């Protein structure tokens, strides 16, 4: 039994349904990548798991989210609140805007341990400074008294990570934690996250649009396209023998050293918006392998060698086109 199992998740936001039948699971000590382009529903998946959909006017329509034996999809808000920040922590995309600008750094980290672990102010401060030091924040005791605007982007993201660690969570969800950062800083933060998972034995869901980040960090991957799971598998398998044409195309969009000129072509067309999802397989208008059933029959998710894919004409599976 995995730590978190999401099954057949569907949500509704003001009458539109941006997620449809999303399933995945993640266990302790494991990094699960959820990868997709804009509008794929990857951030909404994160909000569903931490129960913050109502903030943006959304609700869970169907499916279950099982976390350590608790069904989060039906958990009352009062109980969910005690889980949030305590056992499930969240790291947001843009560190520049994720900290309260009028509150000292330290107080923002203290909040978590005081609220969830019942620490007094002194103990919370000691704990916060210790975590900051573990995250290799130089002069943690000084930075503790700083305000957010006095720190760089990379440092702020470390503070956000420190907040996530403050109550010793079991699961961390990081929503594009490096997208807003510079390349060299990105590498620092990603390395830090990987180290955390290995050292603390937590589960990490890493949401990203970057197949490169996935390849370098994740154990398993879920590829989302237009609110549905296209494919999920172990990271090595996904890159070695992608079954869904979208997965292959997405990997092919990132130039490598050996990519020859003219071989980077992208995927034709554009990512559909929620209001204009096509019928059948949502990828079919852009798919090179599409056939007769693709434009009206939704492909059922099939399992093979530990991976799942939803395609009528999968690659690398012996099914003829």
């Amino acid at each position, binding site marked *: 039994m995995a730590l978190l199992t999401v099954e057949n998740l569907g949500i509704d936001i003001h009458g539109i349904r941006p997620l449809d039948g999303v399933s995945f699971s993640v266990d302790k000590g494991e990094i699960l990548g959820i990868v997709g382009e804009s509008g794929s529903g990857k951030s909404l998946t994160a909000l569903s798991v*931490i129960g*913050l959909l109502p*903030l943006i006017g959304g609700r869970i329509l169907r499916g279950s989210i099982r976390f350590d034996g608790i069904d989060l999809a039906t958990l009352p808000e009062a109980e969910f*609140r*005690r*889980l*949030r*920040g*305590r056992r499930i*922590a*969240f790291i*947001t*995309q*843009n560190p520049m*805007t*994720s*900290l*309260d*600008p*009028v*509150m000292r750094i330290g107080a923002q980290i203290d*909040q*978590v341990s005081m*609220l*969830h672990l019942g620490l007094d102010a002194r103990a919370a401060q000691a704990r916060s400074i210790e975590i900051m030091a573990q995250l290799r924040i130089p002069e943690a005791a000084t930075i503790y008294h700083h*305000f957010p*605007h*006095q720190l760089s982007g990379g440092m702020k993201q470390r503070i*956000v990570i420190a*907040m996530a660690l403050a109550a010793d969570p079991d699961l961390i969800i990081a929503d594009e934690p490096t997208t807003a950062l510079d390349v060299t800083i990105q590498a620092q933060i990603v390395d830090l996250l990987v180290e955390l998972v290995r050292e603390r034995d937590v589960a990490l869901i890493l949401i990203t649009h970057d197949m490169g980040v996935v390849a370098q960090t994740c154990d398993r991957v879920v590829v989302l396209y237009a609110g549905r799971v296209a494919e999920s598998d172990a990271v090595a398998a996904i890159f070695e023998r992608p079954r869904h044409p979208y997965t292959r195309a997405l990997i092919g969009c990132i130039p490598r050293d050996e990519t020859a000129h003219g071989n980077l072509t992208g995927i034709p067309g554009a990512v559909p918006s929620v209001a204009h999802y096509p019928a059948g397989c949502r990828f079919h208008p852009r798919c090179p392998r599409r056939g007769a059933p693709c434009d009206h029959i939704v492909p059922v998710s099939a399992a093979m060698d530990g991976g799942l894919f939803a395609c009528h004409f999968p690659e690398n599976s012996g099914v003829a086109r």
Partner: protein
Amino acid sequence: MLSYAIKRLLLLLPVFFTISIVIFLIIHMVPGDPVDNLVRIGSTPEQKAVIAARYGLDKPLHEQYVIWLTNLLQGDFGNAIVMRRPVADLIAQNIPYSLALSGCALLFSTILGISVGTLAAMYKDSKLDQVVMGGILLGSTLPSFWLGLLLILLFSVQLGWLPVSGARSWEALILPVLTIGLGGTALVARVTRVAMLETAQKDFVLLLHAKGLPRRRIQLRHVLHHALMPVVTILGLRIGWILGGAVTVEYVFARPGLGTLLIKALSQHDYPVMQGCLLMLAIAVMLGTLVGDLVQAAMDPRIRHSMS
């Protein structure tokens, strides 16, 4: 923080001089000989000469200004032409009434406006929110002098609960404060509501939720703090609104005060009194802005640090 306050105060000096020049020039912008504007109609040439010498009217304009300003800074605002008393006395006599009225109205608008705006934002789109929005619309559109007259009609004439006019008792303060306060409340409530709703969309609020903080604590401690910053700005900047409201409302309720004095001076063309009143109002506006800035700086470390 102290150095910030001193710097802000220093920044006000050029503003003060600009305003004082404008007010000084009023007397020269009015058609006719400035001397005629400073003496009673029918004064003798001797009387005119005395005034002209006193204000240095035969000297170049900039020297006149220096004389005028020096007198001002020594508390000499000149003599009222029609009311025939030192302007300083008139102002000193009237200012407590205006301070009481504006102070109460400001307090009333701030407290009620922030509470109502916060409630409306927390229960957005509810019946309560709709009622508040309607109240805001009315409060910000009804002409204050008319509202004052209606309140007199209702509470003084029909119900007989409160005095019609004057300033003899504290009850006489209620209707004027209400009249000004409604407009002020509407302004504060509108800014508070919009700012709360905007702040609630910010990333850091999402992260506060993700940390598991209770919703109410997030709203009242974090979101409200940010929402109050624009409120303070608006209040500081538009403290003149309250004072401007006071001008008309004092007149409607026949209360003594700077507003009544100013209107009287305007209609009697009593320029020294006019200048004195305007100067006092200008100083009040400047102090309002200063207090607004300081409160802002106290609330937001980014502003405090921006100047050092």
